[in-house]
């Protein structure tokens, strides 16, 4: 848990320690912001390259998007240093989300495919 989250660091009553911690965090936020902008440019650039297979383009785009998603969730939403209770809530979400995607892929492999025009 970072100092920025400490209950003792009350807003409006910031001490020197919390101000220094906040400054450090601001640097991190700016670096993450620039990384996200660069990641967006990389996504567009990679999508315009012919790798010989569209599957490679899709895999690459989703990999970059996932990395960007990790940066937003991890640093902007502070998930890399969050309380256990939040992790507990999100573990259920992760389980059900993975199950949903598994069912999606399972139905693609085994279900009756309906062609849609």
């Amino acid at each position: 848990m970072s100092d920025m989250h400490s209950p003792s660091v009350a807003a409006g009553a910031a001490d020197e320690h919390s101000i220094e911690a906040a400054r450090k965090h601001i640097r991190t936020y700016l670096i993450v912001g620039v990384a996200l902008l660069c990641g967006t440019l990389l996504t567009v650039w990679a999508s315009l390259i012919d790798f010989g297979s569209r599957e490679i383009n899709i895999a690459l785009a989703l990999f970059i998007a996932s990395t960007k998603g990790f940066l937003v969730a991890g640093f902007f939403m502070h998930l890399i240093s969050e309380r256990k209770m939040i992790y507990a809530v999100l573990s259920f979400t992760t389980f059900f989300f993975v199950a949903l995607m598994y069912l999606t892929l399972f139905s693609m492999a085994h279900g009756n495919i309906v062609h849609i025009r």
Partner: protein
Amino acid sequence: MEIPYAVKPRPDTGLYNAKLGIWLFLASEVMLFGALFSSYILLRVNAEEGTWPHHWLNIWLGMTNTFVLIISSVTVVLGWASLKMGQFKRYKFFQGITILCALVFLGIKSVEYRDKFMHYEVHLKDGRIADGHLQPAETTDKMLVLEGRFVTNHAELMEGSLHHGGEPKIEIPKDEIISMENYGPWHNTYTAIYFTLTGLHALHVIGGAIVIFAIWGPLAKVWEQDPERYTNRVEVSGLFWHFVDLVWIFLFPVLYLL
């Protein structure tokens, strides 16, 4: 009676009520968008060869909107950090930029939506298909004017252009038309899922912007009375805003690039 842990965190969880509440809400939001992404995958993978469109959307507008949302996410978190440092004016400045970014995002999105509603596919009696943007000022009772092209095979329409606009004007006598339809949600499965996903996302942007504006403007006096409560509100609204950004990070490549 005062509600416990409305401002101060509960000792065992380390969370105040609203923070736990927003995370539970975001957990349900993940499943909502997850279900729609699942629908997208099924529609796309099961589409017949050559029937799923590519580059129907303007990549550069989509990229600009991605930049706008990323910048807004940075300003949200900088605003919150400013409050933690007790700098209310800096917070007002950063969060003001966030609200501006939300308006720019919605403005660009509405330009894109208008583009789709003005884009028509017109089937003619001679078997050709005219495809392009309606020119209302030049269209008369007898003549339809589009900025676009003629094709003979419907599959040709599936591959859009990276450079939108600048196409020649074509005139079509209205008595030559069998049917015409714009690129609204009813056009095909791609436009249906595009409008559903981006429409739902835009509603989230509108909702988030309203809350952020309310805290930034009319409710700003809470800062004077109870700075910790105010900072908590900014944090919770910020968490929602980051989620909105997170969803767009996946929507952009999926709908615009692939």
